[in-house]
């Protein structure tokens, strides 16, 4: 007897978005909508902790009720919560007539993300992914008077269209091969099987790598981050990646990634390219958001190392890393948004330690974390990933990781260096330094403290990560033929 399970959070977010929709249609009120959004997100977060409410008999199992989904879902919701908090009073909500949808779209994006984390079926995965994508599109182009935003959205739309189509085509090929739409990578151990299933997986991977922005499918990321507003950039760089990585991990949970196969090789190559490419790209950037795009790409590469080393630390280390990455990256974006919303050129950051010492300190903490230096959480995260890699004997990957981390250090540290040194004569900063709103300041403080505290006492998070179980999709039933 099969039964379907709808994660609480998905349910709450669905209802919440309807409530928000209703509220908007009744009367627009920005503050109320923001608070509503926060309430919905908090409720969703709370609901994750609760036992499942909705079980449907006779329906296909679309979602897996496991801790991994809960963890990733919680992470997504928390990150969106942070983004909501940072975007309040930001540049994005300067126009009072348009910003109510912003929060609705955020809720919908969260919904998509959370749906993906639990998906064990192509359909639920696809729907979650595209809900997220479409909501993101709206958010990217939210400042619809800006040409940049439009261009960024256009690029994202076209490329994600291509990627989605590729992925769907891959689904179709897999379906043609296996007759099942459930998450189960075709078992290719008994070669020479028809390669169509492998090709399907590769096409699916293309779609996934695109959303993860892994090299060479990464080119959109920098443009999108540059074109859109800061909070949305954080959303693109963090939330969508968490969601997709969570889904990807689940998708491949039935595969022994230790055995070389075409897709494992592809992931390996992509991981290497991402680590190197992302860091190399970031080294030469002068725009902070493009730099962060490079950094984000590199971090995807690191995550893929954990991904390729599932036993025994891979999942736990990936979870830890996702959390660390989310905290630090959102922190950076929050500081950008709060202190120097116009200062995307890194030269504008000269002497921030003089102008805004607290913010600069927080920024340094985040960067140190991203660079993987103790005592910030990023250090332990990287350590954990390397531990996973070592235990899976991923020698090549690890060497690339070390090499690229060293390259990565350069630009993170250069940023701190820039903040510590006054601007060279004649090149004074033009961008106005603003004071972050109290909410944003509190957010930054919390994130900075979390970065340090989790770095010093990681054991709680480690304990949680270690307890995570990625429920394998149910064993694939033999394709049933109609009589």
């Amino acid at each position: 007897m099969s039964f379907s399970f709808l994660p609480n959070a998905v349910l709450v977010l669905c209802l919440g978005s309807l409530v928000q929709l209703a509220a908007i249609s009744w009367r627009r009120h920005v503050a109320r909508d923001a608070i509503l959004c926060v309430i919905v997100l908090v409720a969703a977060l709370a609901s994750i902790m609760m036992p499942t409410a909705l079980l449907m008999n006779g329906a296909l199992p679309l979602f897996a009720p496991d801790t991994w989904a809960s963890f990733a879902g919680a992470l997504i919701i928390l990150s969106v919560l942070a983004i909501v908090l940072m975007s309040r009073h930001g540049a994005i909500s300067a126009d009072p007539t348009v910003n109510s949808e912003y929060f609705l779209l955020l809720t919908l994006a969260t919904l998509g993300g959370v749906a993906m984390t639990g998906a064990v079926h192509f359909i639920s995965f696809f729907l979650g992914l595209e809900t997220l994508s479409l909501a993101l599109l709206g958010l990217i182009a939210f400042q619809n008077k800006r040409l940049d935003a439009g261009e960024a959205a256009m690029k994202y739309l076209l490329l994600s269209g291509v990627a989605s189509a590729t992925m769907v085509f891959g689904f179709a090929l897999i379906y043609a091969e296996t007759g099942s739409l459930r998450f189960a990578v075709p078992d290719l151990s008994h070669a020479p099987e028809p390669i169509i299933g492998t090709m399907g997986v590769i096409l699916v991977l293309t779609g996934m790598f695109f959303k993860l922005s892994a090299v060479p499918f990464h080119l959109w990321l920098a443009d999108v981050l540059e074109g859109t507003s800061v909070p949305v950039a954080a959303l693109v760089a963090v939330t969508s990646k968490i969601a997709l990585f969570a889904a990807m991990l689940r998708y491949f949970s039935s595969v022994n990634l230790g055995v070389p196969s075409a897709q494992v090789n592809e992931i390996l190559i992509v991981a290497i390219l991402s680590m190197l490419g992302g860091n190399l790209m970031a080294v030469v950037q002068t725009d902070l958001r493009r730099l962060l795009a490079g950094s984000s790409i590199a971090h995807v590469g690191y995550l893929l190392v954990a991904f390729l080393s599932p036993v025994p630390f891979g999942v736990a280390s990936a979870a830890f890393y996702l959390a660390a990455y989310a905290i630090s990256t959102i922190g950076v974006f929050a500081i950008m948004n709060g202190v120097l919303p116009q200062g995307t050129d890194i030269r504008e950051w000269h002497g921030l330690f003089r102008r805004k010492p607290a913010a600069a300190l927080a920024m340094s903490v985040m960067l140190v974390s991203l660079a993987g230096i103790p005592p910030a959480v990023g250090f332990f995260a990287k350590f954990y990933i390397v531990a996973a890699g070592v235990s899976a004997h991923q020698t090549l990957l690890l060497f690339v990781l070390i090499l690229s981390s060293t390259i990565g250090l350069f630009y993170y540290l250069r940023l701190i260096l820039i903040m510590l040194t006054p601007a060279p004569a004649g090149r004074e900063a033009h961008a106005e330094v603003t004071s972050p709103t109290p909410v944003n300041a509190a957010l930054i403080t919390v994130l900075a403290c979390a970065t340090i505290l989790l770095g010093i006492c990681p054991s709680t998070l480690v304990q949680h990560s270690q307890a995570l179980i990625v429920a394998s999709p149910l064993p694939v039933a033999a394709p049933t033929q109609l009589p």
Partner: protein
Amino acid sequence: MPIPATVWGVSLVASLLPLVIFCPLAVSIILMLTGGKLPARATTLLVGAGMGLCALFAVVSAYSFLSGPNSLGSLHVVLWNWMNVGSFNAQIALTLDRLSLVMMLVVSCVGFLILVYACAYMYDDEDIARFFTYMTLFVASMLLLVLASDLLGVFIGWEGVGLCSYLLIGFWYGEQANAIAARKAFVVTRVGDALFLLGMLLMATAVGSLDIPTLLAVGPHAAPRTLTLGMFLLLGGAMAKSAQVPLQTWLPDAMAGPTPVSALIHAATMVTAGVYLLARLHGLFVMTPLAMLACAIVGFVTILLAAGSALVQTDIKRILAYSTMSQLGYMYLALGCGAWHAAMFHLVTHAFFKALLFMAAGSIILRVHHEQDIFKMGGLRKDMPWVFAAFLAGSAALAGLPLITAGYFSKELILGSAYDLSPIFWAGALFGAFLTSIYIFRCVFIVFWGTHRTHAHGKSGLAMALPMAILSVLAIGGGWMEMPDAIANVHIFSNLLAPVLGALPEEHNTSLLILGSLVPIAGVTIAWTLWRPKGEAPVAAESPAIATLRADWGFDTLYDWVFVRPFMVLGRLNRRDFIDRFYDLVAALTQGSGHAVAKLQSGQVRRYAGWIAAGTVAALCLAV
């Protein structure tokens, strides 16, 4: 053998011996800490008292030792354990035996005299405190070198005197040249020190200890090859210290220091440390004929080269410097011949007469306005008769005028043993003696005879005169304590050292003695014919050959081109470290590839899609 310090005399020596070293050291430390704040009189008094005590203690302990029950053996005073790692043990300990006793007396007494002289010489220098800080530190180091019972302890003194030599050569640091000469002296001797250190390492490994009695006892049983190598290394160290060819280039430059320094360090004591070291280790040295031969050859070559150079020098101190080298050559020749007594005897007499010569030269220099060119002096015989007398005594001793000078007896002893080794050595050494008498009397005749070319002023005070007088007596009469049987059967010196160095070998042919006596006289005669006052002022002969000779046979230039210049020039070229540049290249490559990667983001969405498609195609290729 060390004996329990029960006997009063022994315990007296044991307690005095550290004080011998401590006295100058304490003076040095006091002067160092007061930092030049003491008035000159107080400084000189302090130095005089300290050094006097030092000499007194040395004499008393020597006397008690010789009159004690253990006068044939050695006295061992362990101060403390220096290093004790695993099986290796090094102690700070002092040993008094008859050999070190002689050296101790020479160092402390001659040192005392020279320092007394220096008190007057340097009285007007504003940095007198610093001068005596170094000088007393030097004496302390030298005494440690002499008395240390452990080779490593010797090395402390060895390097200590090197450092003091450096500091004193560069004493007048305002002149860049002086400082450079000081550095040169240190670095060149440092080459030897490194060899010495290696030799010690070898010995320590082969024997397991650097304690000299142990070394002498156990060392001869070591493998001959090891022993030979070790002795070669030690010989190298000694040679550098004693300015023997080919490491001699520093000594002439070292004359940049004040003259008392030259007298004490670069004539009487430090440069002879090598001789002392080899004599100390003669038990090992004798096991390695090859090293001994090398030593003899080095000494032989140095005698001739240095004498040749001395012949054409114009600077009075440089003449004496080359002469020192040459005389040290005699000692090395003696060591190479196994004539330890002869070497030590010449060491002692040389200390007397060379210190005397330097003091006299210093007096001259002081009184002719720091003029050192002998061709600008002249006729000083009348102006400073006592100095003339002293200088003459020293010169006579150096030239080895027969019977009446100390140098004669010590040199004859060496010549005799050289003949035993090979007549060639003997002939060369004899020729060297001939040259010696020529060059030193050249100097005498030019400086003291002829017309006045410079005005002398002032008088040498008592503090300068007295040491010179004492040393003049010693330079003349010091040799009578050891005479060949053909002249008189006096063997005080060799008997003194016999318990340590063994009995004196048998007597030599008397004809050699006669020949050796005639040669200095011939030399003086030739010098007189060449440089006697001729009315017009003598001028230095000039020719390229002479210039080369004067410049130390071109050794300096050779080293400059072979070692110094390539080292410095290439160093300047590589100042920014090519390895560092390599890392810069890596950084540039990273930056470049970063730009290449960033260029992929052309902003054209078609190309982005192209990359996605290309990536997919490539991945699909993996599947096929």
